[in-house]
């Protein structure tokens, strides 16, 4: 089973029915997979803070939501994460492509990669780093944890994790 299938199976098993996304090369497969699932309304957004707003709206309507994005967008998302998601205590799984790690061909991506964990740490966002394919085994538990504690939670998925997918 590919990790893309697994991500979507776990989202659906945890009643996530609304997903917004901004694409990344590493996330192409998972975004393609969303489109095949009737249980999920996929709403591409133009910027990640906009997506965080969409997810907040879905949550207010009683539905579980999630965002799929690249780590380079953490900067533009901070205000929305802090003053909306955290301030109003809303759950938000953030499936994040962790660009700029080993195997990265684009130097610029490393510039943001070196800030990624420090920013998430500073924001007190629980963060899980998927480096090996078997790390996906924790995804279901991470989703349950997110909806239990009503917090944004980051899942960083690096190039080694995506290898072969």
């Amino acid at each position, binding site marked *: 089973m590919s990790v893309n299938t697994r991500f979507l199976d776990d989202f659906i098993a945890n009643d996530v*029915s*609304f997903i917004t996304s901004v694409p990344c090369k590493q996330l192409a497969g998972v975004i393609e997979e969303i489109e095949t699932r009737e249980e999920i*309304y996929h*709403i*591409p*957004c*133009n*910027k990640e*803070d*906009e*997506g*965080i*707003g*969409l*997810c*907040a*709206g*879905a*949550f*207010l*309507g*009683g*539905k579980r*939501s999630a965002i799929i994005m690249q780590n380079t967008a953490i900067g533009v998302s901070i*205000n*929305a994460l*802090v*003053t*909306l998601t955290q*301030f*109003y*205590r*809303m759950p938000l799984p953030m499936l994040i492509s962790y660009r700029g790690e080993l195997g990265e061909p684009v130097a610029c991506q490393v510039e943001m990669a070196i800030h990624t964990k420090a920013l998430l740490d500073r924001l007190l966002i629980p963060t899980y780093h998927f480096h090996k394919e078997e790390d996906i085994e924790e995804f279901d538990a991470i989703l349950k944890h997110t909806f239990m504690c009503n917090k944004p939670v980051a899942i960083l998925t690096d190039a080694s994790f995506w290898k072969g997918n």
Partner: protein
Amino acid sequence: MIRSEILYEIAPILSDHLVISNIGLPSQELHLIDDQPTNFYMLGTMGLASSIGLGLSLVQEKKVIAIDGDGAVLSNLGTLPTIANNVANNFILIIIDNGSYGSTGDQPTYAGKKTSLAAIAKACGCENVIECSAEQTSETLKGALASNRMTIIVAKCESGNVKVPVITMDTVAIRDRFMNAVKT
């Protein structure tokens, strides 16, 4: 007419529906005029009222009215293509366009100069876009609700503010009360 006068006029219409109101004075004025469990006040985050309103509209059937400002929409212009391409016929976005950043001291916005938010919304693919005067807002909103079609209303008004207290209600209380109102 200024924004607070529009809010006074439309408050009786708003009270039957779910309302997401923009950060700053719009939320504070609405809270003062007619606090309702069906109002979700944004105490932070510039520009996301329309995004929250759309997300809420897409997952449940009650009518949702997002009250936004020209400055806020300019700060999140990407919202308009997303709205256009994800039609929710229970969603109405009212942009109260006073041509200024009211909450920060009435500095002019580009919407008060050459830029037309109604033209932008149409170019983004929004199908029902109505620009109206402040005086017509109430009738236009009633018409939009009766049409059962997703509508963007750009209500042109004068800039200016009245003195209103900040909202001291806790955010978790606001959202808990609102979520219960959505369910009932």
